[in-house]
């Protein structure tokens, strides 16, 4: 960071009307894809089960920084935060995740095909 810190991190957007990355107000709503709804469900359930809290979710989202906000979709950022929090909680290891992601990819080239593991 080259400029003096003004007391606000990137996610604290209130009032920053002249931000260089300001875009138009999005007009169209989209319905959420099933994978996005599942990410949301896994985050909510993680909270209900005590694996991590909304504060943990937000900490990772905010630490991902401004570039992630601009380049990743909402639930892409959420699944990345879900993963980081579960790794920290010890739910599974990096190696287990990598192995499983390889196995998922090997099942097919669409979300539907790759989801179908009979679980």
């Amino acid at each position: 960071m080259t400029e003096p810190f003004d007391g606000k991190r990137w996610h604290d957007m209130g009032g920053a009307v002249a931000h260089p990355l300001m875009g138009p107000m999005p007009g169209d709503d989209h319905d959420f894809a099933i994978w996005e709804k599942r990410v949301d469900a896994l985050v909510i359930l993680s909270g209900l089960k005590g694996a991590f809290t909304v504060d943990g979710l937000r900490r990772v989202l905010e630490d991902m920084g401004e570039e992630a906000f601009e380049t990743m979709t909402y639930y892409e950022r959420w699944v990345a935060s879900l993963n980081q929090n579960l790794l920290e909680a010890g739910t599974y290891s990096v190696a287990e995740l990598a192995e499983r992601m390889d196995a998922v990819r090997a099942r097919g080239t669409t979300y539907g095909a790759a989801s179908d593991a009979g679980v």
Partner: protein
Amino acid sequence: MPHDHHDHDHLSPSGHPYRADQDQGLTYWQVMEIAIRELMIEKGLVTAAEVQAQVDAMDARTPAQGAAVVARAWTDPAFRDRLLADGSAACAEMGFDVGPMKLIAVENTADTHNVVVCTLCSCYPRNLLGLPPDWYKSRAYRSRTVREPRKVLAEFGLTLPDDVTVRVHDSTADMRYLVVPARPAGTNGLDETALAALVTRDSMIGVGVAKAS
């Protein structure tokens, strides 16, 4: 221009366009979701049935729930008082669990208009309104609404007279706001169900008003 949806072809049951990513190339993040979900199930943190139940509950939550609360407040002064005093408890009376968050209902009047934003993230009364619209999570809405609310509202088609005070409410992770829009004129003969049909999602966020009867 942001708006509540009207009848279109190619919309999902919840009234929004489908996102075209269900049958296209598998993305890295989709692979991660599948892998995490399977590991969470195998480790015993969740069950597949619990995940499905959460998704079903999400699909069942629509702005109709918030609209029912507003219509009750319009027709039952005692309920309206309870809603403004303790939004969470009043919604629970109607069977709507807003979760551990504190729900604060704010009422539009002849001289005050309320609008809700979350400048820090995307906090939204999802248990009453469903998942937030895309614009609610945008940089434009989050940054501008607290600085130039009248201009933002005008872009949503809502131009307020200068003598109406605009109150902007910034949500936090621990509490949520619900705007109780003003009851439209000429609706004295309508029952609660008919009134609820006038209450739009946008009117409960404060970027719109209730429909005329």
